[in-house]
């Protein structure tokens, strides 16, 4: 933590939960979290760029170790998509799933960076007072992903079934075609359409946010003295190890849900 005199738990946590922002217009909405955007774009460019470098030299003969690793990843994603999505998955759904998995996994993995050391580096090397490392602990990121998927599900639903087919499905399922049931059908579908992106994004956000908070609490404990430092370090290591599971699991769940939503859009009830 930086050198402010009024150091107490509230300011400590607030400091770590404040994004680096720039304003791009008038009003509360037109604010950009530069840290979130920069970290996510950087990680996306680095990870996909690495994969691209491997792919450019990809051979159908004996693969190099990195190519084998990327292939392993792709086949893993492809297997997952194959079991859920029945259509031409290679056109969009599988590449999208790969992007989501790799990107979200890396964004989540930023949680492993020790927050106080990173805060010191950001402050003293880059001169950034507020800088959050974990883009998925910013609700904007998870909402952006979930809403993109959500728009895509609507796009694919209309593309596959036609606009009329989509509207018919909205009012005629799941209860039946009887006109008396139309309002209930519509209500249920609207609830479903609202709840999908909410649960999709908040699940990931909640997990990563909570993980960050727990690291902060352990960091606060470490500030109380030698005993706190000792137990804080041990518990921090334990939580980090457990967090490996959460990071991978949440990335996987996020990807799987996206695939499931996209395949539901492709199939009629």
């Amino acid at each position, binding site marked *: 933590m930086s050198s402010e005199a009024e150091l107490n738990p509230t300011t400590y946590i607030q400091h770590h939960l404040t994004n680096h922002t720039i304003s791009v217009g008038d009003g509360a*909405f037109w604010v*950009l979290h530069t840290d979130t*955007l920069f970290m996510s774009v950087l990680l996306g460019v680095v990870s996909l760029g690495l994969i691209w470098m491997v792919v450019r030299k990809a051979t*159908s003969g004996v693969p190099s170790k990195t*190519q084998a690793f990327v292939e392993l990843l792709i086949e893993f994603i492809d297997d997952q998509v194959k079991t859920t999505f029945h259509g031409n998955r*290679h056109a969009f759904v599988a*590449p999208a799933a790969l*992007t989501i998995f790799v990107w979200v996994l890396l964004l989540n993995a930023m949680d492993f960076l020790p927050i106080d050391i990173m805060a010191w580096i950001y402050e003293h090397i880059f001169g950034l007072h507020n800088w959050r490392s974990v883009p998925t602990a910013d609700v904007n990121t998870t909402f952006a992903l979930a*809403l993109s998927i959500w728009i895509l599900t609507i796009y694919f639903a209309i593309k596959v079934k036609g606009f009329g087919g989509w509207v018919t499905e909205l009012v005629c399922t799941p209860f039946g075609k009887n006109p008396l049931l139309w309002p209930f059908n519509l209500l249920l579908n609207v609830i479903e359409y609202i709840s999908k992106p909410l649960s999709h994004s908040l699940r990931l956000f909640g997990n990563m946010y909570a993980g960050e908070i727990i690291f902060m609490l352990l960091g606060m404990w470490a500030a109380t003295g030698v005993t706190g430092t000792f137990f804080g370090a041990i518990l921090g290591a334990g939580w980090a190890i457990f967090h490996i599971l959460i990071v991978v699991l949440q990335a996987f769940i996020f990807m799987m849900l996206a695939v499931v939503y996209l395949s539901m859009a492709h199939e009629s009830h």
Partner: protein
Amino acid sequence: MNINFTLISQAIAFSLFILFTARFVWPYLLRAIEERQQKIADGLAAGERGKKELELASQRSSEVLKEAKQRASEIVIQAEKRASDIIEEAKQNARIEGEKIIAGAKAEIQHETFSARESLRQQVAGLAVQGASKILRREVNAKVHADLLASIEAELK
């Protein structure tokens, strides 16, 4: 935890990344993987074919071997037969030759016997004539009985 413009920027970044993956990453690597799968499948098929061919070849070789064994045993049997034939023939020839020799010997013996008997008879005749002439010399005139002696001699001969 406030929704702001970051949402839109992140959505744009996300779309770009998906497009990039779908356009530049996924198809190429998938093609490489599928080509390799094809290669492996071909290799396995070739292996299977090779195995089948080996099986066929070993079957054929065992057939050839069996045939060769049969031929060999036939040849051996033929050879044995031929050998016994040769032996039989040789025996036959030997018997004929022996009989010929025996016949020759018998003829010679007969001849010898005959000539011996002839000379013996001559000698006996001579001796008889001598003896008779000795006996008769005392009592008979040789001249008188000469024709008698001659007849005896002729009879003995």
